């Protein structure tokens, strides 16, 4: 899934600025995969491992369980 798809989905369905808050929490993981706030682009593809972490963050942050892949269909 592309960054832009996730960003739009979270900001529309979960909460405005949800993606920015997720990204803030995601930083340690982003660094592990060689990304940074200013190097991550809308067209970057996020792998399963990253999506799993995003799920956990959303659940912790908003008490919501999401399945991003299903939600995109």
């Amino acid at each position: 899934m592309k960054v832009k798809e996730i960003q739009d989905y979270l900001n529309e369905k979960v909460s405005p600025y949800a993606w920015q808050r997720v990204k803030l929490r995601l930083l340690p993981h982003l660094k592990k995969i060689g990304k940074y706030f200013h190097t991550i682009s809308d067209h970057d593809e996020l792998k399963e491992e990253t999506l799993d972490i995003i799920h956990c963050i959303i659940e912790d942050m908003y008490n919501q369980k999401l399945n991003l892949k299903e939600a995109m269909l």
Partner: protein
Amino acid sequence: MNQTMSTQLLRGAYLPQRHAYVAEQEPAVLHCHHYNCYLQAVLLDTRDYLPRVEQLLIDSAQEVAYAQFKNYFDTHAHLGELDKMQVIEDYFRFAGFGKISLANTNELGGTIESTSDHYGLGWKYKFGPSKQPVSYFTCGFLTGALEAIHGLKCGMLSGHQTSCLAMGDPFSRFVINISPTHRTLAPSPQEGAYQTYQLHPPQDIPVDYLGIIEALTHMPLEGQEQSGLIEAFDVMLTRHYANYYCNISYGFLEEFRNEVGAENHTIAIELLTEAGHVCAFNTFGGIMQSSEWNALIRPSLKTPEDWVHGMVAAVNAFGWGFWEIVELLPNEKLVVKIHSGYEANAYLKKFGSSNVPISFLATGGVTGLMNLIYTLNLPERTPLSLDEEVYKQIHLTPQMFVGRQVHCRAMGDTYDLIEVVKR
């Protein structure tokens, strides 16, 4: 409350020449639980890689409470220990922070339990249950207050929270002890680099700026006797410490830049500004639908632009400085000039100059006002429940308003200037 206590209350008079509430050299500003909790949540989002951020929240509260109560007790030297405890319990309630009792404390610390704590309850109302304690402010406040009572240096005690209303516990519990390590906390910037100014209310509109300010600054906004909470305008209000917000916001930003690099700070600034937008949506929206607004202000408002003016007039009673509209183009643009904004006051005193604009709350606040009036069309839709779904509607509008700070006192300008246009 006995007769002796009635002469010993700490409050904080509204100073018209500064548009500020100042209680023993600590400026107080009105803010709601939405802002308090959202701002804290953003900072906590970084705790995995900014491990000091939680302590920053506690220490910032400890610094301001200590400074305020030390000043007060220095000038009221006749007060005994129990009197001092009462002053603090009373101020905590007055400011809307909740209810506490310091009965089980002494110069070595102690344990304090609260069944009504603004942060614990506010967090649960806004975000739902938390997995961790969230009342960092209360913890720091209590720690600093105990140090002031017992004439200790700031940093000699340290506190932590062991249970929390936000987690579903029946009370929030705070344990305060002698600090195991030598800590020196920073002094509060106190009144900051404030400005005196004379507001220039516009003459050609049906909004009575001075009447609105007069009415709001005399409203009995203080915590209820039982709960210690200020429930007004559909939010939980606080008379919070301006310096607390500035310590945590700018302290966080400094740590964030050190960790991730200045080139990456945009995301943090966006979220600090969004906290101001959240604040405007809830507090401004609540005020503009309140019975007081409907009775006193709304009858004279004829156009959406009058509503913008009415709300800007009201902001002048929040302790946020002098807000004046420089330009208002209907459904197109708003420019607001701010003298003695509390963000710049504190920043200039504590951090000096900045090479980027720092009035995040003001930028988000002015933007939120335009989105309430025009994007959401609140004047036509009130009464409207301002919930998360309505908030999303604003952000899903392609032409919602966005703001930027054009002038900033912390960058050398004589006032702050916020410009809001459609994106």
